[in-house]
């Protein structure tokens, strides 16, 4: 019932009532949320208008043209991409009303407490325990999480924890919203091979979580987490990239600027990678066109795999191409960057940082399994862990 013309009008009304030039940024974002123009496919009253997702582009175009402030989605990606869809699908009315608005405006940053030192690719093996107090119904959480970006800026976290160790691993997990200001939460930066710390370790000691902050049924957390993880994959690879727009543009620029570095062997590798990067760009563009046409395909997994390999190969080539300069590194100082740009900084940083591209968000090996089983329909490997109580698994 909501069409493009109506959305355009609503956006213009918002801009007329809250002129961006004279309105405080946060006030504008709150007003935009309340007008249902934050994410139009969300329900009325929760920042949306139950409109088709594709119509968001109409709103965004009007707002961009008017110079309206945005909610800086890169800074709050976990909230927008992972926490919000899960809150929407599984949260009570109170939970949705409490959390979605400050999540979207960026007033409250979210992080994700999923991976553990003993549960990486095998996430369902996680051991962080949540124990229920029979008197109050509330929960006490103890354990350790790792690879948590934004943990030091986050107000809230989505958390999965084991609530029944006697059940097989996928069945004894429950999904919570965790208060990052609880005194039992300790965040420590985790320094990585680049020298900086984008991520954190999070130690949970006697953290209290009210039962009202449980998402989904007790023991149903694995299914709830699938909503989160599915949305993670969807949120990757949405934008159109120009030719030489990614890592290949950096290497090509060095090639053009510094003829004295050129060798025949590197030339062939550069052209191989240039072709692969251009094909990956076409693949991403084709995926984007499929999504716009309402025909989503499984090519999203292909994009992540392709970019991991390409980023690593191209940045490695660039280090070699730079010869003497390839021996240098721009800065080893330990920092905690709020935003990460894989194509930022110097070649050495890009080379090291891109090593994570085939590990984070699902290793390339696990993604190849997923492609093989879910896309190609190949049979799974025999498994010996599905029906064993979690507490009896080897670790």
């Amino acid at each position: 019932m909501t069409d493009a013309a109506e959305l355009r009008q609503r956006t213009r009304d918002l801009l007329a009532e809250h002129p961006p030039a004279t309105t405080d940024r946060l006030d504008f974002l709150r007003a935009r949320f309340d007008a249902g123009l934050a994410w139009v496919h969300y329900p009325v009253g929760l920042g949306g208008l139950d409109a088709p997702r594709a119509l968001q582009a109409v709103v965004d175009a009007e707002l961009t043209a008017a110079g309206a402030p945005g909610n800086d989605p890169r800074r709050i990606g976990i909230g927008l991409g992972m926490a919000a869809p899960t809150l929407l699908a599984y949260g009570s009315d109170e939970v949705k009303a409490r959390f979605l608005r400050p999540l979207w405006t960026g007033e409250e940053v979210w992080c994700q407490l999923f991976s553990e030192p003993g549960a990486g690719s095998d996430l369902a093996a996680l051991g962080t325990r949540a124990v229920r107090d029979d008197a109050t119904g509330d929960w006490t959480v103890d354990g350790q999480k790792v690879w948590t970006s934004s943990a030091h800026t986050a107000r809230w976290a989505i958390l999965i924890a084991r609530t029944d160790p006697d059940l097989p691993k996928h069945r004894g997990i429950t999904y919570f919203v965790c208060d990052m200001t609880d005194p039992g939460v300790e965040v420590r930066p985790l320094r990585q091979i680049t020298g900086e710390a984008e991520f954190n370790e999070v130690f949970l000691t006697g953290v209290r979580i009210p039962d009202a902050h449980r998402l989904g049924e007790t023991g149903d957390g694995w299914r709830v987490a699938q909503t989160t993880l599915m949305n993670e994959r969807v949120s990757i690879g949405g934008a159109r990239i120009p030719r030489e727009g990614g890592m290949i543009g950096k290497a090509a620029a060095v090639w053009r600027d510094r003829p004295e570095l050129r060798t025949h062997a590197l030339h062939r590798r550069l052209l191989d990678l240039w072709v692969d990067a251009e094909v990956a760009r076409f693949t991403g563009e084709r995926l984007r066109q499929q999504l716009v046409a309402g025909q989503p395909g499984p090519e999203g997994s292909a994009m992540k795999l392709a970019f991991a390999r390409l980023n690593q190969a191209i940045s490695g080539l660039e280090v070699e191409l730079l010869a003497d300069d390839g021996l240098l590194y721009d800065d080893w100082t330990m920092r905690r960057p709020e935003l990460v740009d894989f194509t930022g900084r110097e070649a050495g940083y890009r080379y090291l940082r891109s090593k994570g591209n085939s590990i984070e968000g699902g290793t390339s090996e696990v993604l190849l399994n997923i492609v093989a089983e879910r896309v190609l329909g190949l049979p799974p490997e025999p498994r010996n862990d599905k029906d064993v109580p979690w507490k009896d698994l080897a670790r």
Partner: protein
Amino acid sequence: MSHEPDLLYSDTEDALRDAVRSLLTDRAGHQTVLDRIETGDPYPAGLWSALAAGIGAAGLLVPEKLGGQGASHREAAVVLEELGRAVTPAPYLTGAVVATETLLALGATDGPAAALLAELAAGERTAVLAVPFTTAPGTPFEATGPVRAVADAQAADVLLVPRPDGLYAVPAAEAAVTPLTPLDLTRPLAVVDASAAPGTLLAGPEEARAAVRRGLLAGAGLLASEQLGLAEWCLEETVRHTRERYQFNRPVGSFQALKHRMAQLWLDVVGARAAARAAADALATGAADAELTVAVAQAYCSGVAVRAAEECVQLHGGIGMTWEHPAHLALKRAKADQLALGSAGHHQDVIAALTDLPAPA
């Protein structure tokens, strides 16, 4: 320059695919092809007229006013995907794409070139360009004697012969066409010697060079779609086989070592589809970067087809080495296609020149 290619398939293109696939299933299954490839005449009986005239595939590139279907390279690409899947012997790439595009590039609306074009579009006659199948777009070639490795010359009624003084149409019956033994038995090769046959002059040398270049560019761009179709078939067959084949009390397709190879191949096919679609669309729309996009598609897809066919043979195990199984048809076609219309290395050199990424001085 801000051309955004349409990389999807239209409903019309899907319908055309269905028609071609069902024709090939009926008339040119792998057994039919296997039965014919050693006879010296691998083309399945009646297939060409059904494809060219019946479905109208021969005239897809030709405007309606010149007797064609008035479609584009996008549709011809879909036909080639299907011909690649089935590894069909048919003078489509050579005749309905390269020779037809060459004639179209002459821009004639009457005279011998236009008359020939109308006959080609109707599927009444078949022409091929008398250059070696390895000739890349933009590589100068003029026939001054016998021409080696001309593809589908045995299927042609007319040979388009580039000579120093221009492009000639020579009736195939007047030239010496000597068959060779090809690696790819589904695409006959011959030595063509038209030096004793004068033929009809279609265009002078300048115009001829530009037209041949355009014909070969269309051929190289759409060959990517043939390679895509072939790779896709190889992957599907390999997945099917490894799901059904049991060793060690489990399907061999459940072993991670094999699954990862097939998943990797799927990634390659996904890329090949995007690249082949981009090339077809760039040719269809006359995009400013068509030459670059064709070079990218060729540089990428020729390797994907070979990889897919080689994986198909390996992951089929012993049966993949037998003459009876069609995997070798795909392998031989893919390997020959890798050399056709410019190697991947040649196309990379084109990319280097077009994108200012020069070799060391």
